[in-house]
């Protein structure tokens, strides 16, 4: 079956190429383009088939067991970077050290963060609160009028309805 497929591909490509040349020789450009396209398609198909066949051969190449054994025997010993873990599975010396040390470091960092936050947030918060309270605070000097203002109401031409209301003066405005 494979042989028939290969022969069909080769025959298609050769026939397409021959007819393309013949059409070119006859000045039949549309036919030449068509047969050239057929030859190109067959060529791409054949090339793909050749590549796939080559890949298949590479994948199914039998390994030499002697070479494989030789490579396995000369394999370098893997580095034991955590050998101390194997030695201390029944003892807690290293773990305790890490645990306590890590706890100390974390506690120190937390203390520093707390101090920095306290020293930066409190003044800023006070300033913000002062600004918010300033809007609703009473006017400086209180709501009552001072004596000078009260006496000035008796001066002719001076008339302030609000001040007279504060002084409970029943006189009508001038």
């Amino acid at each position, binding site marked *: 079956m494979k042989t028939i497929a290969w022969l069909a591909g080769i025959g298609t490509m050769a026939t397409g190429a021959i007819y393309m*040349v013949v*059409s*070119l*020789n*006859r*000045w*039949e*450009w*549309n*036919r030449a383009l*068509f047969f050239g396209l057929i030859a190109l398609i067959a060529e791409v198909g054949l090339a793909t088939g050749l590549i796939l066949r080559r890949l298949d051969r590479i994948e199914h190449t039998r390994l030499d067991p002697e070479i494989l054994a030789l490579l396995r025997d000369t394999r370098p010993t893997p580095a034991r970077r955590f050998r101390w873990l194997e030695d201390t599975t029944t003892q807690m010396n290293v773990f305790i050290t890490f645990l306590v040390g890590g706890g100390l470091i974390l506690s120190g960092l937390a203390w520093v963060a707390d101090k920095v936050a306290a020293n930066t947030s409190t003044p800023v918060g006070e300033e913000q609160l002062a600004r918010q309270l300033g809007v609703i605070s009473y006017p400086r000097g209180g709501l009552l009028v001072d004596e000078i203002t009260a006496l000035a109401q008796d001066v002719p031409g001076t008339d302030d309805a609000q001040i007279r209301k504060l002084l409970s003066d029943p006189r009508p405005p001038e």
Partner: protein
Amino acid sequence: MNRVGRLVLGAVGLVLGGLAVVALREATLSTHQPVAADSQVEVVVEVESEHRERGQSEDELIEALVLTCRLEVNSDLVGEIELLPPGADADDDALYRAVLQPAMDQTNRRQFRGCLEDWTIDQLLVDVVRFEDIA
């Protein structure tokens, strides 16, 4: 195959490929000769058309083909394209005759024939039966 053999084989293939390209170039190269202005050429073609559009007659298709192909040469169509009477065999394809002026040199002749017999117009197959100078 040793290295020298491969080199020789490659060189032979290269030479053959080059010769083929040169031959094809010679075959498709335009070389024009002077032609008398009052000379005429007669072209008789056998026409076969299938599955053409409804409303398109074979006469229109062959007229369009000749008018298209004459643009590739220096000749113009003289008169109408005639439908020749059918041959003895009733199954023969229709024959059409066209006259062009001036006549064509060898290159234009090949070019015009190639255009007529090419797949220039869909559903239309043409074979050049006669291509002769008549004046």
